[in-house]
């Protein structure tokens, strides 16, 4: 009976117990829902803030002033934040606030490194359901993220040689020089006011027109580009060196240090300490009238020896010359003259004019010949061949002038485009001289044996009397200068190249500019046949920065090409 009474008393206890437990359980469930919601909102907020920071970093471009850039970046941050965290996400309350801040990163000594840090913070109010019963209607959650944008130091290196003065294009009415200026003016609008942009132009002398600055958007650089006058020769090596030195001067090791080289032809200027010619030898004429050259007889390379300007004209309407046996010396004391030597007769392999000396850059002293050289007052001129002995093995920047183009012959190996719209339709793109026996002297070097009278006086050195050789040395020097620049492990510069074909005489073979850019593949020129197959760059340096190589035969496409390049540069700098 007692047992039955106890059992009856215990009836309903489980229900009471579980009801009590249920209150606790429901409270736990409510808390879990609230905390879960807060956690979900926090996770989404964090992702949205990351996206906002990245978008802000990307949007710092395309503005003229820092204020504009920051306004744009803030708008982009808010836009991408909203795309990832829509208003009302999981019933969050109100519109979240997003605040980006911009800070230039500095090293331990307080010097800018070239990195812009963009920090974004955001907060949102997460709703509560269970906690609401305890008057906590919402909980503020916040998240922050930092993106870093690699700054850009861009040196625009523009060819302003005379070959850019082409006839006006029938479609656009622009000469190549005008088309280049227009494309470059558009190009500089595509960067951020946090970036440094500078301008170097080059003819026979390299000119620092606009030192790299973040104020490039104020119109000065635009005006400088507009004022470019195309004239004279193509001293690409000095221009690259000048641009490189500007990158070093800006001194932002972590920035994307970039050189964009635009050219329409092969380099044809070499800056060196040229040894004075004090020993008698025989070389391509003409010679000066004083001292009087000796009487000539016999023939060399199929031409009657002569110390006069004899011709005949070659395919480029340039006089082919003859060897002047025992050309008189002008200088009596050994020494060197510092300056830039250029070719003055296309890429001719028959002698023709070499020109100089000129200043390598505007800040260099004008070259001067010592008083021990007679007729020096007539320089610089195409008579320089009589004053200087040979092209030395290195230039004034320490670059070897020897390399892959040592034995190259330029005005040969004509290629014609399959597309009749490519004008001019055919181009000499050059070849190894050994494949073209009977053309010119057969070599870029002075002979090491007396294959004609006094031929080997400067045997083994690059000929200074032969335009083809000046171009070969310039190409080697440019490739080596680019290699040196890319070897800089502090600034890690990248070199991009843009080639506008169409130069009448100084065309570039398909390998040269990809080598300067360190592009892994040699691609077709506009004149190459449809069957052309790209092949690996023989001078490719896998450990160095790779640049982009772009080529067009149509000057009206230059703007698009520059825009492509901007896209490449911007993609890398984000």
């Amino acid at each position, binding site marked *: 009976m007692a047992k039955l009474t106890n059992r009856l008393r215990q009836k309903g206890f489980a229900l009471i117990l579980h009801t009590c437990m249920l209150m606790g359980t429901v409270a736990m469930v409510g808390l879990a829902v609230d905390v879960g919601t807060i956690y979900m909102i926090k996770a989404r907020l964090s*992702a949205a803030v990351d996206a906002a920071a990245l978008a802000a970093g*990307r949007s710092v471009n395309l503005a003229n002033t820092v204020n504009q850039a920051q306004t744009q970046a803030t708008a982009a941050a808010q836009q*991408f934040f909203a795309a990832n965290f829509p208003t009302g996400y999981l019933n969050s309350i109100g519109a979240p606030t997003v605040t980006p801040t911009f800070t230039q990163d500095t090293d331990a000594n307080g010097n800018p490194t070239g990195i812009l840090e963009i920090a974004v913070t955001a907060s949102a109010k997460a709703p509560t359901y269970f906690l609401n019963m305890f008057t906590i209607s919402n909980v503020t959650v916040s998240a922050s993220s930092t993106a870093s944008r690699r700054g850009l130091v861009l040196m625009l290196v523009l060819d302003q040689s005379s070959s850019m003065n082409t006839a006006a294009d029938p479609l656009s009415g622009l000469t190549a020089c005008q088309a280049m200026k227009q494309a470059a003016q558009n190009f500089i609008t595509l960067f951020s006011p946090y970036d440094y942009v500078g301008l170097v132009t080059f003819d026979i002398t390299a000119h620092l027109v606009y030192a790299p600055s973040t104020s490039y958007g104020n119109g000065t650089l635009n005006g400088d580009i507009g004022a470019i006058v195309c004239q004279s020769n193509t001293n690409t090596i000095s221009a690259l060196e000048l641009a490189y030195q500007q990158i070093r001067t800006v001194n932002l090791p972590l920035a994307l240090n970039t050189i964009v080289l635009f050219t329409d032809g092969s380099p044809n200027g070499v800056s060196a300490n040229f040894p004075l010619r004090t020993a008698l030898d025989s070389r391509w004429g003409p010679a000066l009238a004083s001292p009087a050259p000796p009487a000539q007889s016999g023939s060399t390379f199929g031409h009657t020896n002569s110390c006069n300007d004899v011709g005949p004209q070659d395919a480029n309407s340039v006089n082919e010359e003859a060897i002047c046996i025992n050309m008189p010396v002008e200088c009596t004391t050994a020494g060197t003259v510092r300056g830039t030597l250029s070719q003055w007769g296309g890429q001719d392999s028959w002698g023709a004019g070499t020109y100089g000396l000129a200043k390598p850059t505007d800040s260099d002293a004008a070259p001067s010949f010592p008083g021990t050289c007679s007729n020096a007052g007539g320089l610089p001129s195409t008579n320089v061949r009589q004053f200087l002995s040979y092209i030395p093995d290195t230039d004034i920047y320490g670059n070897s002038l020897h390399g892959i183009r040592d034995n190259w012959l330029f005005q040969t190996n004509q290629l014609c485009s399959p597309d009749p719209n490519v004008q001019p339709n055919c181009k000499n793109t050059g070849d190894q001289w050994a494949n073209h026996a009977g053309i010119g002297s057969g070599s870029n070097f002075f002979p090491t044996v007396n294959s004609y009278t006094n031929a080997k006086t400067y045997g083994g050195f690059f000929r200074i009397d032969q335009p083809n050789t000046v171009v070969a040395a310039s190409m080697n020097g440019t490739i080596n200068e680019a290699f040196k620049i890319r070897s800089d492990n502090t600034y890690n510069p990248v070199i991009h190249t843009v080639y506008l074909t169409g130069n009448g005489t100084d065309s570039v073979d398909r390998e040269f500019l990809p080598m300067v850019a360190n592009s892994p593949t040699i691609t077709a020129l506009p004149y190459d046949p449809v069957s052309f197959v790209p092949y690996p760059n023989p001078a490719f340096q896998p450990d160095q920065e790779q640049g982009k190589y772009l080529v067009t035969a149509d000057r009206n496409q230059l703007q*698009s090409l520059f825009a492509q390049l901007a896209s490449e540069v911007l993609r890398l700098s984000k």
Partner: protein
Amino acid sequence: MLEFALVMSILVPLFAGMFTIGITLCKGIQVSNVCQDAVVLMVRANTDPNAGLDLSLTQNQRMIVRAAAGLGMNANAQYDPSSTGNGVVILSKVIMVGPQECASGVVPAPPTAPPWNASNCPNYGQYAFTYRVVIGNGTRWTSTFGNPPTGVVHSDGTISARDIATNTSNRALNATFLNLSASTFALVSEMYADVSYINLFSVMNTPIIYSRSIS
């Protein structure tokens, strides 16, 4: 016994719901993190093409599949993505086609260009795909932005400049909320995961978790 049954009739669904919602919450956060990781990889690949982060390659896709461990995306212990698994990650790059894309994609440029407009560059002013890579079960789910037409996506995920500018079937749908200006782009990673195996008592109507990250 009756009391216990009464109580259990409340407690069992409650605990089942707690279990399902709790695990789904965890999975949801994981899906969100996978999307975020994937989009960061895309940003990295886009920023530095030489970084070796070609996400069209299986060996690089494994990074994403590994981040999705437990979501049934992998085909094997090496974390190769499974084309019949329980999840998919869809990577897209969407661009607002502007003058730059038209100049690159409409070659030779017509005499009427520039200026570019919809008549000389059909996708001008539209959102278009420039990249698409699908990792995992791509036959079961589709991107909320739609798909590029068959055949235009190259093996590395890229789409030609011509298709970007001129192929009207290559437009991204429902992208207006991105509010992009001309020639700017958004990188999008989306993930679907089937979590029906934890859906006790069919607590969820559609046991599919979806998340996306846009950068």
